[in-house]
Structures are given as structure tokens and as C-alpha cells.
């Protein structure tokens, strides 16, 4: 079964018209004789939104009690059983009530997509995990409901729903976003002009980067991918010195604006010892914190495995530690680095010195 098509409507703040746009697109799809349902809609007590939802089939929600409150969540099973062509699901960053199928709504959406259902969803930029600190610094508000950046990366389309700060404030004053009493408080806090301007800049940049990231591979695949930007492949082993290789790769990546993959080529059939397993776990933790993709690949030959992985990942830059080779092996078998230079044409190779050896010699 083909995976559903995922379209995300992203905005700078509540009230810019994401839900309205989602419903509008739902009606357009219905007019084109597509089978459309509302999986979940946050009406926010906005009459315009509620009116636009009329005429679209709504899959009944699941009701659950939590701490004396009655909560309603999307009924994922019911939507999948209904099997529409397109489901409209509002607020993908939402955290579900305890006991639901998943903790987060974007996980529910993933199930719909896996079931072959196309999804249009909505989100505000302040929920993006990587921007959480920046949002806090800009607005003083720590957003609790976040979603991973990969959700935007993996979506088929990310569409900006934009409104100028002045227009949004006008909508607030008119009571189109929140009831008037609440709107006044909102305008004095989160919806101040400076906050909205900063959020708008963030969302514009985010969507522009997303468009750029999509445009480049599409335009340049498969042959010119390397010309687009740097991608580092750091070769590691379950040894303490690999921590430094990752840190060095990360530092270079900051300057190059590059993605990093860390690769451990495990010899065929090799089972890591207890010590190696500990080192690997530590390297994986460091990789996670640094935002590095950790790859473990089995291979009989290091260089040919690196060549294959570098091709698959579009690597342009190899980081490798000083090989632990005996002089004898170098003379009779050829050095590993020579082989890498010879067999990885077009790739820059950087050898990270083993500082411990340098200190020993001084």
C-alpha cells in the first residue's frame, strides 16, 4: 500500500488562518470528488471556522475522562476504518490524553499515512522542537507541546499560511481569534507586535529553508548532489578517540553548515565486547546530542563499505582517526589512508590526529 501524501500548513501563531485554509482545501478536494473527512478539528470557538466545517464529514471523536475533565481526541482507528482518501487533522503537535493510542497527534497522523490516507494538518512554528529555546528567548513563553523537526522534513509539502502582525492583531481585536476579553490579554502578552514579527521571521526562514532543501535534491539528483553542500561522514570505532572525531566533525559542520553521519563499519560477524558496547553506547549518546546520524554497517572491507555508504548518503567529506596500523602492515598491505585516497575519489579526507600520541612524543 502506498503511503499517504502529507501536507502541513504552518503559521507563525494561532489565528493566522491555518485551520480555515485546511477546511477550505478540504472543500476543494471534495468538489474534485475526493473522499474527505475531518479526523480532528479544533474549532477554537471561531464561528467562521465552524461554518466552514459544515458540509464535511466528521469522524466521531474518542471521549475520555482525565482529572475530572472530559477530553476528546481523534479516533485513529475509526478514521482508518473509514478509509477516506483525505483526512483533515488539526494541530499536529497536540499531546493526546493518557491512554490514547499514541502520546502525540503527529504519531496518530503517521498511522493514517501508513494506512494510505492523505493528510492535511496544521501547526504553529513555535511548536518546532529545535526552535523551542529561540521562541523562549524571543517571547518569554516556554512552549510545552513540541514536535520533532523530522516531521516537517518528512512531509511531502510544507505550506506557509502567512499574515502580517498588523493583520493578525486586527483579527484579534475583532474577536475573530479569541473572545474579545481574552484577546485583550493576548494582545498585551504573546501577541505583541515584536513577538509576532520575530515569529513571522522564524516561520518564513523555516519554510524557506524547507523549500530550499526540497528544491536542491529534486533539481540536482542524482549526479550533482555533491555540488549542493557539504555532508560529513565521520568514521568511528568503539574507542575513546572516536569521541574526539565526533566533536571535531561537529565543529567543522558548524562552519560548513553540513549534516554529519557517523559510521562504524563492523566486521562481518563481529560481536562487540562489553567494553566496545559501552564505548558504542557513549558514542551514540554523543551523536544524538550533537544531532549526528549514527550508522552501524556490517562489512568485510572498510574502504569499500565507506565508499558505498558515502555514495548513499551524499558525503563530501570524510573524517577519520589516525589508523592503528602496524608499520609492517603498511609496508606489505598498503596503508589504509592511501587506499582511502585512491578509492574514494572526489571526497575530501581529514585525518584527526590522536592527541594522546602527540603528547607522548613531546
Amino acid at each position, binding site marked *: 500500500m502506498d503511503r499517504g501524501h502529507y501536507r502541513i500548513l504552518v503559521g507563525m501563531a494561532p489565528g493566522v488562518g491555518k485551520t480555515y485554509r485546511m477546511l477550505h482545501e478540504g472543500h476543494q478536494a471534495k468538489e474534485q470528488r475526493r473522499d474527505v473527512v475531518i479526523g480532528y478539528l479544533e474549532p477554537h470557538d471561531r464561528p467562521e471556522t465552524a461554518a466552514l466545517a459544515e458540509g464535511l464529514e466528521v469522524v466521531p471523536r474518542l471521549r475520555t475522562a482525565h482529572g475530572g475533565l472530559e477530553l476528546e481526541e481523534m479516533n485513529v482507528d475509526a478514521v482508518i476504518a473509514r478509509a477516506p482518501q483525505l483526512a483533515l487533522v488539526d494541530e499536529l503537535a497536540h499531546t493526546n490524553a493518557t491512554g490514547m493510542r499514541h502520546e502525540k497527534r503527529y504519531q496518530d497522523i503517521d498511522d493514517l499515512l501508513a494506512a494510505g490516507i492523505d493528510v492535511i494538518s496544521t501547526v504553529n512554528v513555535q511548536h518546532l522542537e529545535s526552535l523551542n529555546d529561540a521562541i523562549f528567548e524571543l517571547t518569554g513563553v516556554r512552549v*510545552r507541546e513540541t514536535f520533532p523537526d523530522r516531521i516537517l522534513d518528512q512531509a511531502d509539502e510544507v505550506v506557509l499560511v502567512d499574515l502580517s502582525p498588523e493583520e493578525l492583531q486586527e483579527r484579534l481585536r475583532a474577536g475573530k481569534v479569541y473572545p474579545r476579553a481574552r484577546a485583550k490579554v493576548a494582545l498585551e502578552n504573546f501577541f505583541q507586535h515584536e513577538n509576532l514579527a520575530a515569529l513571522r521571521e522564524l516561520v518564513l526562514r523555516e519554510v524557506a529553508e524547507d523549500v530550499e532543501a526540497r528544491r536542491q535534491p529534486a533539481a540536482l539528483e542524482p549526479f550533482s548532489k555533491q555540488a549542493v553542500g557539504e555532508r560529513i561522514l565521520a568514521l568511528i570505532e568503539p574507542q*575513546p578517540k572516536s569521541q574526539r572525531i565526533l566533536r571535531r566533525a561537529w565543529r567543522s559542520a558548524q562552519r560548513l553548515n553540513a549534516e554529519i553521519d557517523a559510521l562504524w563499519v563492523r566486521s562481518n560477524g563481529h560481536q562487540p565486547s562489553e567494553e566496545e558496547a559501552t564505548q558504542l*553506547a557513549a558514542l551514540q*549518546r554523543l551523536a*544524538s546530542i550533537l544531532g549526528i546520524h549514527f550508522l552501524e554497517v556490517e562489512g568485510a572491507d572498510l574502504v569499500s563499505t565507506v565508499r558505498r555508504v558515502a555514495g548513499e548518503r551524499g558525503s563530501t567529506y570524510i573524517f577519520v582517526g589516525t589508523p592503528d596500523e602496524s608499520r609492517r602492515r603498511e609496508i606489505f598491505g598498503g596503508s589504509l589512508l592511501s587506499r582511502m585516497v585512491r578509492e574514494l575519489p572526489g571526497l575530501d579526507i581529514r585525518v584527526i590526529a590522536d592527541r*594522546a600520541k602527540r*603528547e607522548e612524543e613531546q
Partner: protein
Amino acid sequence: MSVLSFLRRRPVPEGGRRVLVPFTGGDLDPVVLDAAIRVARAEEATLVPAYLIVMPLEYRLDAPLRHEVEVAMPLLEAVEHAALRAGLPVDARVETGRTPTHALQRLWEAERFDRIVVPAPAGRSHGFTPKELQWILVHAPAETVILRPDPTLSEGLRLARTLDAA
């Protein structure tokens, strides 16, 4: 420098001793670093400097935190360099947790350490608090030494000296 020590005798492990020096909040006092290096050298141990990152609740524990990492990486490099200059094998770590002690617990649940050298607070705005030190003394899986940093050093000077030591 006053020294508090809490000793829990454990058999000497095979595969080399490991001395853990956890730090957090953007600096490691040069006095503490120097003492940890001397302890590790005397015991022919590997020094494990570990930068502890406090992860806000809204993030996954392994989420990338750019700002924290930008502080941690140069500092870890500097500490590692200082240890290497002293001729010590180094095996640096970065660990995350909801609190510094949670990060520590995660670290020593994953790995073995034979001695732990912990900097005590010295009027600092960050780092281990007295309550955290108490927790460490109760829960540490190895001999633990708590060192009080030089109280006369300002935070900026302390950081500068740590980096100078490298």
C-alpha cells in the same frame, strides 16, 4: 582547598581504573581539574571528564541542544587536552538528564567508574548544589572525592584558567 572524602571500598577492576570528573553549567574549576588529574595519574587510571547537560522536560533526553553543546564541546576539548598533556589517557563523555544528578545516575548506570571527583559549589550560580552533593555521596557507586574550588576565583577567571590549563 578543603577535601571531603567518602570512601566505599570496591575491588580493583580489570581493564584499568576509571576516574570520573563530572561537571556542569559551563565551567570546571582548574583546581578541581588539576586534582583529578593528579588522582588519575597516581592510580594509573583513565580520566573520564563528563559534561552533564540538563535537558528541559519538553525535550527528549537525547534531543540536540545547540546552545548547551556550543558551551560543552570547547570545554570538553580543553579538559581533554589538559589531561593528555599530563600524560593521562582520556575518555570524555557528554550525558544528559533532567537534573545534574539524573544525568550522573544515567552515566554511572551505563558505565563503571572506580573513583569520582566532584567539584563542590563555591558561590557559583551553576554547578552542583549542596543538595546534589549530598545525593552524590549517598548514591555514588564508587569512592567519591568532593573538592571545593578556589573561592577567590570569579566565574570568568575560573573558566579562563581552565582553558589556559589546556
